[in-house]
């Protein structure tokens, strides 16, 4: 996925001008990655496709509200997708037991020094910063991102008191902030 070269901001602005071709390009560019995330969050392909459908319809109809001075276009699109996915999860109510072992692999593969340097230069360094966190602080953050769990659900899943989980996540996010601003 060459998201480094795709002009998300320009494409969203074109969508705001009702440019259907631009929206189609956006679909071709991003639908696969959006679906990948939705499937991981929702665990079911049919519901994930519903979620991507709803999110992209929303992207089109709200494109005029995108403002490039506030942030990246791609981040804006994913904020819509994640919001919808989280709503779907909350409405579903009961939590499905999932195998979450994979999520630690998303951070743990220690990248080569060269890769780290290039990550830093294009501002992509969250994974490096996450890998510097201790697991008890990192793991709940990853559970929230990949499984869409709330504080309560994470405490439940990790059989850890709610206050402890909240404290660890907050400390983890503060440490991340600091690391990301370096």
């Amino acid at each position, binding site marked *: 996925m060459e998201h480094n070269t795709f002009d998300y901001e320009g494409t969203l602005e074109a969508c705001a001008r009702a440019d259907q071709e631009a929206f189609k390009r956006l679909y071709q560019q991003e639908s696969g990655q959006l679906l990948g995330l939705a499937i991981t969050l929702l665990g079911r392909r049919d519901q994930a496709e519903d979620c991507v459908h709803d999110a992209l319809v929303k992207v089109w109809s709200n494109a005029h509200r995108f403002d490039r001075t506030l942030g990246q276009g791609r*981040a804006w699109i994913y904020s819509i997708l994640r919001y919808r996915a989280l709503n779907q999860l909350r409405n579903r109510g009961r939590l499905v037991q999932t195998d979450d072992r994979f999520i630690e692999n998303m951070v743990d593969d220690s990248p080569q020094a060269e890769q780290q340097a290039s990550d830093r230069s294009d501002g992509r360094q969250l994974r490096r910063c996450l890998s510097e966190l201790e697991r008890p602080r990192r793991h709940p953050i990853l559970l929230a991102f990949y499984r869409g769990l709330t504080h309560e659900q994470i405490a439940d899943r990790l059989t850890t008191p709610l206050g402890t989980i909240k404290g660890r996540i907050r400390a983890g996010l503060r440490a991340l902030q600091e690391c990301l601003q370096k």
Partner: protein
Amino acid sequence: MIPHAPEPRRALIGEYVLGLLNEPEAKEVRGLIAADREAAQMALEWEAHLLELADQLPPQLPSAYLWERIQQSLRWSATTSSAPDKERERWWHSLGLWRLTSGALALLVLLGWLPGVWNNQVVTASYTAVLQQPGESAKPGWVVTIYSDGALNLKSLITDQIPADRSVQFWTLVDPVDGPRSLGLIDPGEGTTLSAEQIGAVEAGQLFELTLEPIGGSPLEKPTGPVLYIGRAVLIASN
């Protein structure tokens, strides 16, 4: 209570973006983001950092109907008339030359050097088809080999995660008029060997595809789910 100091405020917005907060807290932060430019920027910054985690996941091919559905929801008139079957037919017919672009060709060359695939002693490979994700030209996922005795071997080059409530079904299509014919269910990541009787005659250009179906396979005589991998048979030996 939303903190005023920027650092705790940024952390709280991070918690909101991650979806950790309960509804009363989330509502408060949502209100702040709607009203405060700086808070909105913080939220998008978090979201931008988190893209790195999203990008660790393999992309998944949406079903052909998803784009159709989106267009219908947006009431774009141009394509609303095309029924799902039409869409599928277009998939079958639109498989142009992409199937033999560099990636597939490189693989063909590679296959030629593998013993057993191009082995003259007993049976030889007559046809091969490299199955790729629709629209992808350099990511071979499965290889179909048809031997001179008519048997078919389907071999996986990758392992996909398939939802627990779905099955992967293997199909072939000789003539679009006849429609696709099921060759059975496949375990993701695991190949299969089928006898000549099960396959029937194979000809150059014949399509093979894997689709995602309800568990136990398509309820109809044709694929109902998205195409995961597809490719055409190419003649590699004539004896």
